[in-house]
């Protein structure tokens, strides 16, 4: 008895696959007749191959109809998307919406900064605060004296607190304003045509990028 594995055993599955060349297959067949070890192994592999021949399955009735129905549903959804361009699950519309919101924010930020740095706005704030002061004094003069005194006291505390908060905020605001000033200085350095050119090229680049991303995800 020998433990040595027969070299022909390596060829059994290739033989069953029909991938052995004619001559080699003939030699293999001849060997099988005389080698009980390979013959036994061949039988086992034939059993495995037989088990692995699984029958063809059918998806059941109405399969084609279900595929067509699913396609129709998809087409309906696509039509809805075309009719309502602001539906948020379309990535292209999300990009556009983001672009518009960014533009609005930038515009609002610029106008606010511009106005805050202007002297006219400070004068306006001064007038408003004076008007509010006169209004409050008039209302307090109409109230009973103890209540007015108490309200003045509370008002004083509140104004002290507000002063402290505003002083802190003012410092932060001044920092932001200095950034704003730098930003506007840069804007003023370039001629309007350069800005228009940059905006247009930026927008076109955004469109191209959007299309590329759309194709990639499709």
């Amino acid at each position, binding site marked *: 008895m020998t433990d040595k594995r027969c070299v022909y055993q390596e060829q059994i*599955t290739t033989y069953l*696959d029909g*991938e052995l060349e004619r001559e080699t297959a003939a030699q293999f067949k001849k060997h099988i007749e005389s080698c009980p070890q390979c013959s036994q192994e061949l039988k*086992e*592999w034939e*059993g*495995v*191959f037989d*088990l*692995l*021949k*699984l*029958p*063809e*399955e*059918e*998806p*059941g009735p109405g*399969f*084609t109809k*279900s*595929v*067509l129905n*699913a*396609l129709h549903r*998809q087409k309906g959804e696509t039509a809805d998307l075309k009719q309502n361009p602001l539906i948020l699950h379309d990535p292209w519309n999300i990009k556009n919406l983001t672009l518009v919101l960014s533009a609005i924010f930038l515009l609002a930020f610029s106008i606010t900064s511009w106005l805050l740095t202007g002297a006219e706005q400070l004068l306006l704030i001064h007038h408003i605060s004076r008007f509010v002061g006169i209004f409050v004094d008039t209302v307090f003069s109409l109230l009973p004296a103890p209540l007015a005194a108490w309200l003045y006291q509370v008002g004083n505390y509140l104004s002290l607190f507000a002063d402290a908060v505003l002083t802190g905020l003012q410092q932060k605001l001044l920092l932001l304003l200095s950034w704003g000033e730098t930003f506007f200085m840069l804007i003023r350095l370039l001629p309007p045509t350069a800005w228009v050119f940059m905006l247009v090229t930026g927008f076109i680049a955004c469109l191209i990028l959007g299309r590329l991303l759309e194709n990639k995800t499709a």
Partner: protein
Amino acid sequence: MSKTDEELIVLSQQGDETAFAELVERYQNKVYTLAVHLLADREEGRDVAQEVFIRVYHALPRFRTDADFLPWLYTITANIARDRWRRRKREKGTIRVSLDEINAELADHRFSPESVLVKKDVSLMVEKAIASLPWDYRIPIVLRHSHELSYEEIAEIMKIPLNTVKTRIRRGRLLLKDILAPMLEQRRDS
């Protein structure tokens, strides 16, 4: 006279739904069978087959009519089934069917009054055994044995070298031989 695949594809590309329905009718069994054998789940196999034909419908305008349709269908089916398998694995954790589980089922049948496995049960257990293989071995094994494709065709469908296909099939078969050994033994005894 029925139309050829090429004619049906051209008509479908032009938006003819009847032609596309005929294509689906013609290939639904092959696609469904592959999906079921890869996933060992009939319900999921049906979902996969449906998704395959929907994807095919959308991709048909880009399909070259001189190319073979069936290998293309097999590639799409294998890709979608692989995605499903991965998703299922993520959701449910590892779902490899263990050798013990299959052997336990076999033992149940061994002592059942009928004592012999009916053909349908055998197929189901073989499906489970195939589903216990690593994914890379499963596709070539199924394409080779259930669909009787050549190594070259499998290499083209899986877009891998021929030698890799041979190696995967050989390893997959060795694993399956071990898994199916009790079943083979029982068959011999009966």
